[in-house]
């Protein structure tokens, strides 16, 4: 179970609070969606949860199966089962995609006291998963995200997620920049990973992704906190009417 409790966080360089008391609770196997206007703090929440530098936590907790992620290094959070599909995946020239993936998978296994995968085992699994996401072998050989199209980067994020088999997946606008077919692929990739244990938090601006990945709960975020939660119908309301009415409700 993933829980964000009254999370308040500010920028480290400026005296500016972005997250202003965010609370959220996602049960095992559930899919939640977060929608909210640009700049409301959705990506900031995902960065703070995964441990990016540059933010100061003023208050609150982020718990994964009871352990406070905020006390851990980013790699420890990953090994604990957290995964963030980045809104803007980072290009890393000189680091091969395959090397990166294998290092990541084995680092996590090592940290959890599991046996590392050898090259052959790894290759077999990665090939299979890449194929289902229509990621060709050539892309795996290239440096991490370098020269990938927007959609390829997003698919690569999902491939990483599939390889790492996390407990809690945060997808930050994984649908943006995807064509209709790629969106389906990504959604299928996500759905294939759904099970009774694994939870998802899907950040999106559009209903379309939620047509494919059916959320149990939809949250609306504004100005650093959740202002409303509801069923899938809430996403439709946003799609049709925008945020104005919802923002007025709380104001």
């Amino acid at each position, binding site marked *: 179970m993933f829980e964000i409790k009254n999370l308040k966080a500010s920028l480290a360089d400026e005296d500016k609070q972005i997250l202003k008391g965010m609370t959220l609770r996602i049960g095992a196997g559930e899919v939640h969606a977060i929608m909210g206007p640009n700049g409301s703090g959705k990506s900031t929440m995902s960065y703070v949860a*995964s*441990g*990016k*530098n540059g933010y100061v936590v003023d208050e609150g907790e982020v718990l994964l199966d009871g352990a406070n992620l905020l006390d851990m*290094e*980013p*790699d420890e*959070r*990953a*090994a604990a089962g957290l*995964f*963030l599909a*980045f809104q803007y*995946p*980072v290009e*890393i*020239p*000189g*680091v091969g995609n395959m*090397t*990166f993936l294998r*290092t*990541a*998978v084995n*680092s*996590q296994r090592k*940290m959890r006291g599991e046996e590392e995968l050898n090259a052959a085992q790894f290759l077999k699994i990665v090939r299979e998963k890449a194929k289902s996401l229509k990621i060709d072998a050539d892309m795996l050989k290239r*440096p*991490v995200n370098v020269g990938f199209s927007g959609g390829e980067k997003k698919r690569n994020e999902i491939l*990483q997620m599939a390889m*790492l088999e996390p407990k809690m997946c945060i997808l930050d606008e994984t649908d943006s920049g995807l064509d209709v077919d790629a969106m389906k692929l990504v959604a299928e990739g996500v759905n294939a990973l759904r099970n009774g244990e694994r939870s998802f938090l899907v950040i999106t601006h559009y209903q379309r992704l939620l047509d494919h990945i059916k959320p149990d709960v939809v949250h609306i975020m504004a100005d650093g906190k959740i202002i409303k939660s509801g069923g899938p119908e809430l996403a439709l309301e946003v799609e049709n009417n925008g945020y104005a009415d919802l923002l007025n409700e709380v104001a």
Partner: protein
Amino acid sequence: MGEAKFDNPTEALLARHSAPRKGSDWAEASRHAARERTLGMGAAGRRDEYWRYTNPTTLNAFEAPDVEILQLEEVPVFDGVEKLLITFVDGVYAPDQSDDLSGEGLEISMLEDALSADIHWAADVFGVFETNGQSPVNRPFAALNTALAGQGVVIRATGKVSKPVALRYCREKTTSDAVIHHVIRVESGADLSILENGAGASRLNTVMEVDVADGGSFHHLRAQGRDHARLATTAIFARLGAESHFKSFTLTVNGVLTRNEVVLDIIGDDTKASVAGACLGDGDFSHDDTIFITHDAVNCESRQVFKKVLKNGATGVFQGKILVKPDAQKTDGYQISQGLLLDDDSNFLAKPELEIYADDVACSHGSTCGAVDENSLFYLMSRGVPRAQAQNMMIIAFLDEAIQEIESEELAEDIRSRLLGWTERHKG
């Protein structure tokens, strides 16, 4: 012995090495001229334009330093490749640790033997290329080398040489001053690879003069020894004929002071040259690449790719020049030098220079210096890679552009594994 008994420091330089075996007239004339040259230009000093960033004091000192011999448990560099091995111990040829001096498409002799022949092709190269390389920038250690070197190999490649010639520089004494001078000619259409490996001495001075004829190919790959307190000055002087290929790559890990100079004269059209280096230094480490490439022919390409990883107060220096003569049209010159600083105490100093007299040329140069990219580091860590390992991946990635300059994939892989080794030993 101290320096006091000499009139000036340059005489002390010339006096600190024992005299080589006497050669034939042309060789002695060349040595004598080099001695005069050395005296004329004087010892390197901080006031010299190209010694501002690197302090030559220990290189000039009368006594070579006392340097603990590094005992390595790992497989030596280039061990896995088939090669013709020539070993020098403390700067002296060790025939019992070397292969027979013969190979397909190859004539090899020791420098002393070549220099004692009355007639030898090396007479056109020995000290001649070095002399040409003394202007416009003085290179006193190279002149000193010509004046005093008795050791080295003289190689003539006449065809495709089946295996690389590997020069291995071992150490047995903690204090030694080695002066080694190689003379190489790659004949038209021939293809030669030279590998160099090891610290060689507590203070090593090498010169390699290379004449690449039209259509010849020369590949040079070097791993300078890891002994921490060792000193090294090296210089390569090469003349490149038409449609020739020249590649030189140097890996430097550790070593308290290294000055590597490369002087290339491209005199024939349609030639391609690359000079590259990767260095990794932790702590008391000063590494200097000083490169001078002259384009004096049409449609030639030259590349300089230098990457330096520095931590705990290490210093990296790059001084690289591209000179394009008035008639060297269609020159394509590329130069990049980058420092990756793993902390605030380390320094990277670069002096890139372009001097272009032709109008139809494409030359680009860039120099950057910075820390490991935080966003990339976070991305790697967010996937479960621990910080130190993520940083090491970034270091290897940073160096990769230089490694890619190595022609042979097998040798490049060997070098990559050494980089990994260093990052593991110097983690965090």
